[in-house]
């Protein structure tokens, strides 16, 4: 099978800082991949480069046949980035719901404004997705009336309603109170079960272990380990991975 995400020779500098070092990564359709690592290891930057929220300094990104070279110029490059973004849905740590729109307004905004979808069709699709995250009854509320967990579930529904091929999650539970993390992880599990390709930056080792097909460990801008979760948690090869897992284990007990 052809990979749905192909990242090749990717570099990213922030000024003098080399945050991503020649990264090459392939993800198969329907795969759930968790990116773990200490903060500052570059995992969020890698995720944000995948939909060009950060422009990479060098390399190529290919998602579902849309191939974009870093540092391109002109209208064609912009069009490619636009097409790439339509293939990817993104969920942020801070939810970033639009406060001036209702829940339903948030969810139909993308399809109606970006894709030019018929409003009624968008509403039908949005209601379906809100139902699947369990928040259809909140559709006429404004985001300020929702809990953090509910906001994040709406954000997931918003991304799904764009019907992307790939979902990117940037630490989706890090801003949540501990008792609200479970409901978001459950929704993510459901999305995974429905066959969505997912790239998840997370600190939730339990989720990585239970749901991921692959876990990739990053440190200092490099992928230092890439294997299935059982193997990784049982026998980490790199000492840095071992340290990460030990820390998680000590927190667990």
């Amino acid at each position, binding site marked *: 099978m052809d990979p749905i995400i192909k990242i090749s020779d990717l570099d990213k500098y922030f000024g003098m800082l080399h945050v991503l070092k020649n990264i090459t990564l392939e993800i198969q359709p329907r795969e759930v991949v968790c990116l773990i690592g200490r903060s500052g290891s570059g995992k969020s930057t890698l995720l944000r480069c995948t*939909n060009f*929220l950060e422009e990479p300094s060098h390399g190529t990104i290919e998602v579902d046949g849309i191939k974009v070279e870093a540092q391109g110029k002109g209208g064609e490059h912009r069009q490619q980035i*636009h097409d790439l*973004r*339509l293939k*990817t*849905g*993104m969920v*942020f740590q*801070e939810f*970033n*719901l*639009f*406060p*001036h729109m209702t829940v339903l307004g948030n969810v139909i*905004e*993308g399809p109606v*404004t*970006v*894709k030019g979808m018929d409003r009624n069709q968008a509403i039908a699709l949005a209601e379906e997705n809100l139902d699947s995250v369990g928040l259809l009854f909140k559709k006429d509320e*404004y*985001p*300020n009336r929702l809990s953090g967990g509910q906001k994040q579930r709406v*954000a997931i529904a*918003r*991304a799904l309603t*764009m019907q992307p091929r790939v979902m990117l999650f940037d630490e989706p539970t890090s801003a949540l109170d501990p008792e609200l993390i479970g409901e978001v992880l459950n929704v993510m599990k459901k999305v995974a079960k429905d066959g969505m390709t997912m790239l998840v930056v997370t600190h939730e080792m339990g989720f990585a272990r239970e749901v991921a097909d692959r876990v990739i460990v990053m440190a200092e801008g490099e992928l230092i380990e890439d294997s299935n979760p059982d193997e990784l948690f049982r026998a980490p090869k790199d000492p840095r991975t071992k340290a990460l897992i030990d820390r998680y284990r000590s927190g667990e007990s």
Partner: protein
Amino acid sequence: MNLPSQESSVKKSQADLLFEAQQRKQNRFRLNVILSWISLLVFLVFLFSGIEIKSSGGKTEISYWRFRTVTENNRNIRKKIQTSTSSLSLGLPGKGVDIKTIIVDGEFIRDNLDFVATGIVETIKISVFSILLAITLALLAALGRLSTNPFIYALSTFYVSLIRGTPLYLQIFFFFLALPQLGIVLSGLRAGVLALGLNYGAYMSETFRAGLASVGKGQREAAIALGMTPIQTMRRIVLPQALRFAIPPMGNDFISMTKDSALVSVTGFVHELMWRATKVGRAEFRNMEALVMAAIFYWIMTLILTSGQSWLETRLARGDR
């Protein structure tokens, strides 16, 4: 009987009592403020009532003065006349006091009320046109400040600096008196609206800039991740939130613009409140009466606009964030 629960219910009612006491205190304060307002207003009315209170030698005399037309040497002139007097056999000893208040020419006010009041329409017209121009310019200038194009950025900062660096009074004169030298003759209304709009646009662009800055980076990123173009992001996500933030200060600007519209009267060709008040005031040397009339009209307009603004503010506070 469950003691702990009883205790907690006692505690709760105590908290309620405290809350009620606080509420009562607040209500009393508010009531006193209203009463003080009313007494200040009554005092102001008394100040202009023409009543004279003379209290001396154990007697008090209250008299009422007004303007009357009298004929002297075959000429009609308006003169202050003491019209009615009532006295009390109670008062301060010795020289005592003599309190005189301002005598207002009521007949003059009655005769000219309609003429001055008609100016309200013109005042509102100037204010509305100017604010529309100002909002447009302010928005463009604020967006210009975000531009990566150096010329557009410079244009926006240049405009703001030039306008804020010169007096509004001068700007009005410039558009009305200086432009005709270049062959551009603007009516008083147009010159006034142009000057006020340009002036307030420069000040309001700062408000809009703050509004745009108040929209977090995450909002833009979420819009971009959905595939929105920069224009769509601005129009659908950033501007609606920025405008919401900017509406209360914009209300303030509109209120002060309504008052600054009085400056347009210097052109002599816009018959708004201030122009009408000064015209009739000068003609009959009744400037005080005329200006008091205009002041009352401005004050009422401002009160209405202020209450409208606070209504809008509470409405906007609902719903989001």
